[in-house]
């Protein structure tokens, strides 16, 4: 039996057991990671995971069952179980469930990949991490760490509406960090990002990061931070580097525009959203410079795909246009509840997890400036970059972020390095204060977005560039 045959059998079993809709994902994911520490390989792990998940709709209730067995009998049993679980959901029923249209397609899609990351020899990959971490150690880092990760996923999707889609998605990325340990504190510098940079692409991404070139500077800066002056407390103009702005977008825009949160479906765990659907199209989210798109079609970005896990094709949409909130991340059922006509943002972390609303690539369109122009136009402020800590309330309003490094900005010039820079604010007030935005867009990848119960880890992308925000509270400390 092919994977499509197995999936079709499970769908039919769910229908036979009373489901009015069913879909099945068969997934095979290979994962490889290697970490190095202080010039030596620390861990090499390889995983191969195969199974199927069935989603069934009985009346107005969903059920989901997953099993690591692709036999015909197991697939049919999974279909029946999913329908039975859905029937149990009806003990506490909700409103009628409809699904917005997703035309049935038969399709194949594969991400672009110039160099197969699993085809690169382990020794080549290991040498890279050993050299980079060894260099950081030699330049004074107490802890020099490096990591790469590779995901190679093939999935087959079949629905009772006639979808029949297979996709091959290859994702990878890498990063290094240097930690210096002082008296009662630690300082860390990372390249190119807190966890590295990731994309839906091949090993060419890792090659482009030039890990070894930046290793010595990371170590030296981490040590220098131990004695740098602490970021002063107060209100000032804040310039954020693109990597930190990517996380700002992720936390205070991406999660806030998830329709399941807006509808209250994540209330007890991930939380809700400050956004009210009644204001869709009219709410002022940020300044006129703020144009945010939901775009899973960006080549190479970590939130890219051909079809989501409900079979909806990847389509670019506006989320915020000229500062006004105009779009959400939606699935077929949540969109129907909200009276919208699109889904396309539903994904699952593996065959064993229920697909749910997830960010794709949620990012800013470029502005007219460069970072150097922004600095030159700032009389008094702080530049911060590379995320160190992140926290935001359950409605996605009140946030506090810490960065690895900051610099004083005086009279249009970058001055002293600053230690422990933090900033805090309220999402829409913060975004309305953005008055300069760079054109230097990078599609930062976030491979560790947590959401859902049982917990799921999502891969998201966030095109972002440096930007300036006026009168932000900085320097929050214990």
């Amino acid at each position, binding site marked *: 039996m092919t994977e499509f045959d197995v999936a079709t059998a499970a769908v039919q079993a769910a229908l036979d057991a009373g489901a009015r809709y069913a879909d099945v994902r068969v997934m095979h994911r290979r994962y490889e990671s290697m970490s190095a520490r202080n010039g030596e390989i620390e861990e090499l792990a390889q*995983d191969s995971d195969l199974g199927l998940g069935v989603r069934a709709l009985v009346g107005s209730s*969903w059920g989901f069952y997953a099993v690591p067995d692709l036999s015909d009998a197991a697939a049919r049993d999974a279909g029946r*179980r999913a329908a039975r679980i859905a029937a*149990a959901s009806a*003990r506490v*029923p909700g409103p009628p469930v409809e699904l917005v249209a997703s035309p049935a397609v038969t399709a194949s899609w594969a991400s672009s990949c110039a160099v197969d990351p699993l085809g690169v020899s382990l020794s080549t990959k*290991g040498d890279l991490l050993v050299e980079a971490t060894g260099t950081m150690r030699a330049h004074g880092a107490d802890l020099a760490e490096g*990591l790469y990760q590779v995901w190679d996923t093939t999935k087959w999707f079949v629905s009772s509406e006639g979808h029949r889609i297979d996709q091959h998605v290859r994702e990878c990325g890498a990063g290094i960090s240097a930690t210096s340990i002082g008296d009662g504190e630690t300082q860390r510098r990372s390249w190119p990002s807190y966890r590295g940079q990731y994309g839906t692409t091949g090993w060419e991404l890792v090659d482009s990061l030039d890990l070894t070139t930046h290793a010595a500077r990371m170590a030296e800066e981490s040590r220098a931070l131990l004695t740098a002056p602490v970021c002063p407390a107060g209100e000032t103009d804040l310039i954020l580097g693109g990597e930190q702005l990517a996380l700002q977008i992720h936390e205070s825009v991406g999660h806030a525009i998830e329709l399941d949160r807006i509808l209250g479906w994540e209330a007890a*765990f991930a939380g809700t959203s400050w956004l009210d659907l009644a204001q869709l199209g009219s709410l002022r989210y940020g300044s006129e410079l703020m144009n945010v798109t939901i775009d899973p079609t960006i080549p190479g970005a970590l939130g890219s795909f051909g079809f989501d896990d409900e079979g909806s094709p990847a389509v670019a949409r506006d989320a915020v246009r000229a500062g006004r909130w105009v779009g959400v991340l939606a699935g077929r059922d949540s969109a129907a509840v909200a009276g919208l006509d699109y889904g396309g943002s539903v994904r699952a972390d593996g065959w064993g997890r229920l697909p749910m609303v997830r960010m794709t690539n949620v990012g800013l369109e470029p502005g007219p400036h460069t970072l150097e122009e922004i600095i030159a136009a700032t009389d008094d402020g702080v530049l911060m970059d590379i995320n160190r800590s992140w926290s935001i309330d359950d409605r996605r309003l009140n946030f506090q972020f810490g960065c690895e490094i900051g610099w004083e900005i005086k009279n249009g010039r970058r001055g002293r390095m600053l230690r422990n820079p933090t900033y805090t604010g309220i999402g829409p007030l913060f975004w309305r204060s953005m008055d300069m935005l760079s054109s230097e867009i990078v599609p930062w990848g976030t491979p560790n977005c947590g959401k859902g119960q*049982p917990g799921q880890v999502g891969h998201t992308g966030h095109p972002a560039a440096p930007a300036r925000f006026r009168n932000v509270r900085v320097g929050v400390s214990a």
Partner: protein
Amino acid sequence: MTERELAEQVVELVRRSAGPGAHAEATVSRKDLALTRFANSFIHQNVAGSSVEVRLRVHVDGRTATGSGSLTSPDGLRELVERTLVAARLCPPDPAWPGLTPPTPMPSAPAADEATAYAEPDERAARVRAFVDAAGGLETAGFCRTSQEFAAFANTAGHTAYGRMVEAAMDGIARTGGVDGVARLAADRLADLDGAVLGAQAAAKARAGVDPVELPPGRYEVVFEPAAVADLLQNLSYWGFNGKAYAERKSFAELGAAQFDPAVTLVDDPLAGSGLPFDIEGTPRGALPLVTAGTTTGVAHDRRTAAAVGGTSTGHASGESPTFGPFPVNIRLLPATAHAHTTGPERAGGEVTGPVADPDTAALVAGVRRGLLVSDLWYTRVLDPKALTVTGLTRNGVWLVEDGVVTRAVRNLRFTQAYPRALAPGAVLGLGRVPVRQPARTEPVWWSTPPLHLASWNFTGNASG
């Protein structure tokens, strides 16, 4: 084929492929997880499934690699063994290899409750129904979960182990006027989870939270309910009692130092509730004192971190421990009965109404001059791991307490606080007498703690920023 047979077969395949000089350890884990989720007072997600992981670590010719997979067919196991051996041969030498766990007696784990292990979706749905009904028309959201895990271990040193754990948990909120109240409980048996009791408690707290006022940031005396204390335990565990962080001087922990108030005694006790009797290196698990009457006495180790500090493994190897480090996940903050700082009644039990969920917490609140009663903490993230400075927010209910009486509901606050400093000598003003087991929100681990009265907590922002 049983999990035990699978593990032994994997080890045998390594022997055949790599010869008698190879070191190998195999763990086979089968997890059955069922979780019924509700929101807007209806079941919106209802999932179940079974997963299998075969994990193999080999050490061949001085080199180490780890492989894992879900395929348990003969071909699948052979493929796992071959690719892991290939990976090991391509790796650089591993001079710090700590060797395998020798044959070792296993402790007995808590008995598994069969009714919980094989609970039907209707049984979880019935508890959700009871939670929703008890909330009396308030909007509700949360989950009811049952899970079991079968685990088997074998290595080429001749050590084998087998275990099983079963757990259940329920976690829900009730909402009114944009205010949430929470009730959360972990148990060995689904039968011990009463949806009606939890729903009523969450609703009472939500109703008591309406019309909150905004307080200025600053240092406040606090009473943390068990859900909030669980966050302290979790962050102390991950970043402080982590054997790798300790070995690398990234942890605050100093063995033998009086770093905490004498009222604080922390024990990682995986077999006191749902837990497996061994870790993925086959090391037996048991009670590990972390803090004894305020003095730091232990950190968690796997075989590698133990070797690095000249100690022995405490049974905390996990899939994350080679990189993040070994950390405890079943910490008990011992209740007040044995400690001088105790406040509160001789016996705790029963229920109270309003924001204070139980007499144990009520007794601590009675001792507050001016401070805050905090139900839960949220989105806590570490600013600096060494000082364990953490930022985060309150959630699911905060109230102002004046002269021992709850006077007003308060809007959520942001804090930036070094956790060990908040628990330092003299900082603990009281400890409850009744521990409550708190489930982790996304995985079947637990923390057990009574409520806690602290002298000071640094709130750095309010709803206005």
